[in-house]
């Protein structure tokens, strides 16, 4: 180490910022260099002298005065116009979008529910008046402030106060559109399986079920499959009941739907679902597999009412040989 470098390191060391290995090297140099030792002494003296001009705490009345003046200035600012607020929001969320990973959860917020409800009313009207032209889907994407979903890692840089934190952000989004819009349908199907809220699943399944009952191309978009998944796996009985309603039109024509309903009849924990399932099987009462299940249920279902109803159905339709 030469003296020029030593002089620089003396300053860095005096302020506690010299890494340990360099500090060790510096000490070794100082051990053999009286000039540099003198340099260090002078720097120490400078630090003492500099403290003859000490930092003072701001007086309480200075703080109070400053704060008051700031409050008045902020109160006097005109409120932001709607386009300024929107612009600000878009800027905030543009940056949030850049940070949001592809794997972030998609949340269907209340706005989608409201839009869907409007679509639901429209679907009902369309079922009654088929000559109406379908509504044009309009997407109005809006976004809310981003929230942090989770922290994925924390890494501290050695020998420093610097910490790197990786986190995932959830960016709430909103979309309005017709129930015929594939994007809306896709979101509803996603909501039927993925939403943490039973209310949201209930809404989405109800809408999908209504689409199916109204005969609005239930298969191509995989809605039927989504309803079957909900019927089998959703923890909320109300949601499962809606899925069952939506599958009703397809029990006769689709074997998979029939099997799903039979499974619900045998395994669903809620007696109302099992009862509804029996009702759905009316068009296929004569089917062998259906009768087999009805026999099992008539003998072993925990609920006496269900056992009774099953027996009644079996008696109603003579067996095919």
């Amino acid at each position, binding site marked *: 180490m030469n003296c020029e470098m030593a002089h620089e390191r003396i*300053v860095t060391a005096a302020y506690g910022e010299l890494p340990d290995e360099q500090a060790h090297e510096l000490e070794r140099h100082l051990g053999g260099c009286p000039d540099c030792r003198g340099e260090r002494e*002078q720097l120490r003296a*400078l630090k003492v002298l500099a403290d003859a001009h000490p930092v003072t705490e701001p007086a309480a009345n200075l703080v109070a005065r*400053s704060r008051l003046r700031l409050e008045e200035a*902020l109160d006097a600012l005109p409120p932001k116009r709607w386009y300024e607020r929107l612009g600000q929001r878009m800027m905030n969320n543009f940056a949030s979008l850049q940070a949001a990973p592809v794997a972030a959860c998609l949340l269907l917020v209340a706005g989608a529910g409201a839009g869907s409800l409007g679509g639901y009313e429209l679907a009902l009207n369309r079922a009654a008046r088929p000559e109406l032209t379908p509504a044009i889907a309009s997407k109005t994407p809006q976004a809310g402030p981003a929230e942090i979903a989770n922290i994925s890692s924390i890494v501290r840089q050695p020998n420093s106060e610097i910490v790197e934190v990786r986190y995932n952000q959830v960016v709430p989004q909103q979309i309005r559109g017709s129930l015929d819009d594939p994007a809306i349908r896709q979101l509803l199907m996603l909501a039927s399986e993925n939403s943490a809220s039973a209310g949201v699943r209930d809404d989405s399944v109800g809408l999908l079920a209504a689409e199916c009952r109204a005969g609005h191309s239930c298969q191509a978009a995989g809605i039927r499959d989504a309803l079957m998944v909900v019927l089998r796996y959703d923890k909320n009985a109300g949601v499962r009941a809606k899925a069952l309603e939506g599958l009703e039109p397809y029990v006769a024509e689709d074997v998979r739907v029939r099997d799903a309903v039979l499974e619900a009849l045998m395994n669903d924990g809620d007696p109302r679902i099992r009862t509804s399932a029996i009702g759905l099987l009316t068009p296929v009462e004569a089917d062998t597999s259906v009768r087999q299940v009805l026999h099992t249920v008539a003998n072993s279902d925990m609920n006496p009412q269900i056992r009774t109803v099953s027996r009644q159905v079996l008696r109603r339709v003579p067996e095919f040989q």
Partner: protein
Amino acid sequence: MELIREAQAGSRAAFDALVRQYEHQVLRLALHLTGSEQDAEDIYQEAFLKAFRYIGNFRFECSFYTWIYRIVTNLCLDQLRRKKTRREDHAVYVDHSGAEVDVLASVPDGRSFSNPSRELDRKLLGQRIQTALGKLTPRERMVFELKHYQGLRLRTIGEMLNTTEETAKNTLFRATKKLRTQLAELRS
């Protein structure tokens, strides 16, 4: 972090809470650097109004502390540059009413004042330090202030001044060299 998001969303209460968190540090820095209560108050006002206006731009890529301080240091640098061009060289500071106040007389001191000549020495010394500090460039003054008086790390100082830690370190080195030259005769 929640407070910042609320302030970004427009909550005045959240912004006021943020002001309270940082106002003492802001005033302490501005007061020591400018030596004037009025100037410190002006810097406080400008800094927080700017923060209010631009808080939506804060992206959490640095700490909020660094972000606020960056605003304050830039305002202080502008002040120092203005003062330099006016060639002002106050050895005392000016309070809000405009009266000059001797720096050391206003500093509370635990030691007894039984030795008047020592007291005089301290006052003169304080003035000499301020004069020497005034001869640094605004950036050198700023770095020395942030390092020696405010105790910040060189890396943080670099971030606040939009430069690297290495540059901040070199600036500190230059500042101490200049100060030592200025104050050399006091040691003899």
